[in-house]
């Protein structure tokens, strides 16, 4: 195997830049890692794919890790994935162990990242090898499967999740159909502007940056500091030591693997990873009643799991071409912009890029640790940055990004604003934007494989049930639907109780 990777000072600096900006976005409640990647995507035009991957992976790892700072200090998760970090982290901070809690969280994040990286490295080639045997039929079914899983795991909200996914597919079909070059679903006034449909980049920046900005504007752009915050000027009652991890080895591995596994399932976000890991930690704990009062155990479970997510979410992306979460859905944009097809053939056709991904992820995790662990006292001031001063810069970057999508087209800027409003409306009526985006990304492929399968069979639909691998995927789809149905009912009952 070819182990050539492009790496030098520029790549190191770019990764460092990514990690630092990622941490800032992750640490500010109201801004997310996904948003950071979305607005920095246009920079990938300037660099080649491998250099931009260092930036994007840095943003990803930094963004997920930065969330622990406000979770521990002010009990507000900076990103949804650190939702359970504050459960034990904040009580520790209130006891005067803020620095200790932060350093435990940072170390746990590093270990989680490394566990998931290992899984990514070994699991992706295996899955890709299996997927190489897929014909158009199986490719169609695997996308259908991904959409079922997404919906199945939007707990208590299954129908709306499926609806949003199919709506994304529908919107992606707008424009010319490549087979017969005919236009569809486009109002006659906009035939020139929307000939190729909506572009991915403005759609995703709109959905993840602008809609969030509108939501924050609606609430007055207020900084969520104030109440109950622990800043780092008090006295330290207990210092961090690596001995804090004594007795946590099993917890580390369990949580890291749970996070990775949740990441592998398409469409499940980081909040699910940390919640599930935390509840497992409680179930296995020798003293579950103490969790939530400032136990190292709970903090470790949460932070290992959410960084475990990073490698996991890349598994389906790189082996099947299906994004594992909203952030990887944005990452797929980077590959598409550079004309690199992610899917079963990705590793064999692009061994250098595959190695770059692995190395970039490793480097980002190490840089994240180096940047956060020692200067954490200084870094904690990030949460004081007013987001009202950052959003105008986000607006400028988003517009530049959208405009450059097709080398200068105002239609894409309009698309950006329109999808910002669409995303904002989605959040109001409870439609998940992530599901919509995944449908939008996979929609054209779904159509292509469907039509190709039918062309091969002369229009006979039974072709979708004719091959053993296909039947296996059907079994998975039905299994997930049943699981989803039962889980939904349980969620409803829990809500009522």
């Amino acid at each position, binding site marked *: 195997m070819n182990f050539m990777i492009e790496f030098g000072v520029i790549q190191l600096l770019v990764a460092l830049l990514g990690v630092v900006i990622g941490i800032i976005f992750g640490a500010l409640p109201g801004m997310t890692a996904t948003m950071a990647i979305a607005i920095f995507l246009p920079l990938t035009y300037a660099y080649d794919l491998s250099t931009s991957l260092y930036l994007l992976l840095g943003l990803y790892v930094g963004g997920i890790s930065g969330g622990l700072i406000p979770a521990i200090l002010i009990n507000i998760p900076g990103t949804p994935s650190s939702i359970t970090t504050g459960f034990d982290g904040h009580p520790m901070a209130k006891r005067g162990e803020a620095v200790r809690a932060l350093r435990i969280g940072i170390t746990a994040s590093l270990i989680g990242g490394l566990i998931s990286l290992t899984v990514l490295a070994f699991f992706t080639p295996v899955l890709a090898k299996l997927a190489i045997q897929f014909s158009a039929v199986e490719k169609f079914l695997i996308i259908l499967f991904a959409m079922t899983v997404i919906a199945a795991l939007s707990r208590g909200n299954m129908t709306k999740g*499926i609806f949003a996914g199919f709506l994304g597919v*529908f919107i992606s079909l707008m424009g010319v159909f490549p087979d017969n070059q005919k236009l569809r679903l486009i109002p006659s006034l906009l035939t020139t502007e929307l000939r190729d449909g909506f572009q991915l980049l403005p759609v995703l920046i709109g959905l993840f940056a602008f809609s969030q900005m*509108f939501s924050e*504007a609606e609430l*007055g752009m207020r900084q969520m500091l104030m109440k109950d915050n622990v800043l780092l000027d008090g006295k330290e009652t207990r210092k961090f030591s690596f001995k804090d991890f004594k007795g946590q080895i099993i917890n580390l591995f369990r949580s890291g693997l749970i996070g990775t596994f949740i990441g592998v399932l398409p469409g499940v976000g980081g909040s699910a990873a940390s919640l599930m890991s935390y509840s497992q930690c409680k179930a296995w704990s020798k003293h579950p009643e103490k969790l939530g009062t400032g136990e190292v155990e709970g903090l470790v479970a949460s932070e290992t799991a959410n960084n475990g997510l990073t490698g996991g979410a890349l598994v389906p992306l790189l082996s099947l071409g299906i994004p594992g979460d909203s952030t990887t859905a944005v990452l797929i944009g980077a590959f598409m912009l550079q004309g690199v097809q992610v899917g079963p053939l990705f590793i064999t056709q692009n061994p250098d890029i595959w190695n770059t991904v692995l190395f970039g992820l490793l480097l980002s995790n190490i840089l994240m640790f180096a940047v956060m662990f020692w200067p954490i006292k200084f870094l904690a001031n990030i949460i004081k940055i007013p987001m009202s001063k950052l959003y105008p*810069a986000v607006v400028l970057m988003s517009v530049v990004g959208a405009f450059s999508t097709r080398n200068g087209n105002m239609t894409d800027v309009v698309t950006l604003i329109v999808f*910002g409003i669409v995303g904002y409306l989605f959040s109001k009526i409870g439609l998940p934007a992530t599901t919509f985006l995944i449908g939008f990304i996979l929609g054209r492929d779904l159509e292509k494989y469907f*039509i190709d399968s039918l062309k091969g069979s002369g*229009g006979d639909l039974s072709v979708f049930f004719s091959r053993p691998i296909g039947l296996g995927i059907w079994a998975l789809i039905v299994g997930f639907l049943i699981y989803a149905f039962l889980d939904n009912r349980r969620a409803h009952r829990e809500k009522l109780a």
Partner: protein
Amino acid sequence: MSDLFKINITYSQSHLIMPRIILGVLMILAVVIFIQEYLKARKAKKPFMNIKQWRFFAKDYDKVKLFGSIGLLFAYIVLLNLIGFIAGSIIIASLFNILYAEKKDKKSIAICIGISIIETMVLWFIFGYIFEITLP
């Protein structure tokens, strides 16, 4: 019976097959969501489609900031076409900064404009000059 499992693929019409199927699926899902919401409302003994109590915006929401943001974005497009990237961005970024600022006295407005000029120039330098990305 076997005809039920067949879809005729005519070359000239093949671009409409998938949109029709997806539209069908969406309509079925919409009906299901409608029924679910109705049953939920009945179970909770609340009137269905409770328009009077339904609140779209958050309580005491910031009208100026929300609609101001949307308006400014559209204004940005117009300005970009009229006066170009640098001037248009400085104006719009300043207005965004002032809109979101908590205090609106002379000093903070000056700071807002200063920040916007720096932001615009930095972006122009990085994207337009170093990376040669097409700017509006």
